[in-house]
């Protein structure tokens, strides 16, 4: 499968338009849910950290610090990827699966089009913009934490911002982006595999979407563990 996907496209001009269409569908189309989830996710992390700081000897800037660390290291790259596995992954599986069921993939093959390259390659390339989505999720997650902190009157905004700046290790952002690139590849390929090689009818498209979400999540979580061990361990 992978070899066919990365073969030279039949026509680059068509491939370019397909890539732009997929960027619009997979990346731009996911921004709303990512923005919404990130703000609330950061807010919840800040509230939970604040509520657990019962000891007066622990400085209040720990709320900002914990929010930053949680969002950058885990929530923005991994939690967002699981959401994307559900939103983007099921879209990929169902769209390719429907094309399989309705013989549109056979039609491409009969015409002499490399269907794997035509359908999957633009999705992989589009998903390479996923780190930008993660960057936005990081920023908005921390921003959500700040808002929740102020609204809940847990600490001052100065204390929160001091916490954000405390012991900042730039490699943590790099680690997060490395993870997001790997997750992007998983989100594009695992659902494509389930859609492309599915058999059966309309009901099986739904089943394939569910199976693809489960497997994409499993692969993301295992890869997350391995990458964390390799990069931070």
């Amino acid at each position: 499968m992978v070899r066919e996907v990365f073969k030279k496209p039949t026509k680059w001009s068509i491939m370019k338009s397909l890539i732009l269409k997929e960027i619009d569908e997979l990346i731009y189309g996911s921004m709303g849910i990512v923005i919404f989830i990130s703000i609330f996710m950061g807010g919840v992390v800040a509230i939970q950290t604040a509520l657990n700081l019962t000891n007066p000897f622990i400085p209040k800037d720990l709320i900002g610090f914990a929010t930053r660390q949680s969002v950058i290291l885990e929530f923005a790259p991994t939690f967002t990827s699981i959401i994307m596995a559900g939103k983007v992954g099921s879209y990929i599986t169902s769209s390719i699966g429907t094309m399989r069921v309705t013989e549109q993939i056979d039609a491409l093959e009969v015409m002499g089009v490399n269907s794997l390259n035509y359908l999957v390659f633009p999705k992989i390339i589009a998903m390479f913009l996923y780190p930008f989505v993660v960057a936005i999720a990081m920023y908005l997650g921390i921003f959500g934490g700040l808002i929740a902190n102020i609204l809940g009157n847990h600490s001052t905004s100065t204390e929160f911002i001091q916490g954000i700046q405390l012991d900042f290790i730039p490699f943590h952002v790099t680690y997060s982006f490395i993870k997001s690139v790997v997750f992007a590849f998983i989100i594009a390929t695992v659902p494509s595999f389930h859609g492309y090689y599915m058999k059966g009818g309309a009901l099986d498209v739904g089943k394939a979407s569910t199976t693809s979400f489960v497997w994409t999540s499993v692969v993301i979580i295992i890869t997350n563990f391995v990458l964390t061990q390799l990069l931070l361990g």
Partner: protein
Amino acid sequence: MIEVENLHKSFGDAHVLKGITTSFEKGKTNLIIGQSGSGKTVFMKCLLGLVVPDEGTISYDGRMFSKLSGREKRDLRQDMGMVFQGSALFDSMTVEENVMFPMDMFTQQSRSEMEDRVNIVLKRVNLIDAHKKYPAEISGGMQKRVAIARAIVMNPKYLFCDEPNSGLDPKTAILIDNLINEITKEFDIITVINSHDMNSVMEIGEKIIFLQHGIKEWEGTKDEIFKTDNKAVTNFVYSSELFKKVRQMYIEERN
């Protein structure tokens, strides 16, 4: 000419095609008939190169499919047009974009040249006002005509149709049959049709191949099918009372 020699195909324990040998000539409408599960679809998929046979050869005007390189196979496929059972139109594209797709993919023609060609083929299949509509917005008969237009837009040498009449009313089915037959003559191409429809057999079947349990049970013309004594063919073709009467009348007329 398409020549098929001793074609075998199995899926696990199921031996679907058992040594089929036949040929399809230029300018003729060839029909493959048989009950469900007789191997018609697998046979057609082998002809299209979508299923790789276990044994046997298929050659297109002397080009043996199994011996072609990947590039040569893709080139050969550009000489093929296929009308799928469910039309297989691309949902996300309009009628015009669907028909234009093969040209857009494989030629360097300008947009206006492609539009001109699309207009010609859509006019040929009697579809004039549907250019900007999506497949979901047109009827089943219109979808079939768009599929035929897409199949002939690149001037193919070989046209394959899988159950082109399925799901259509009798009048539209005859229109589609006649359209395919006219195109075969007009462009002097080899047309192979998979069909259950006995009206198609009687109307346009210049060469008919009857498959049963993966074996070529009978081969002949539409005139010969009236006279054949082959029990399997007569049981299948004349299973309805109407066709039994038609056959009886034909034999009486001949006598």
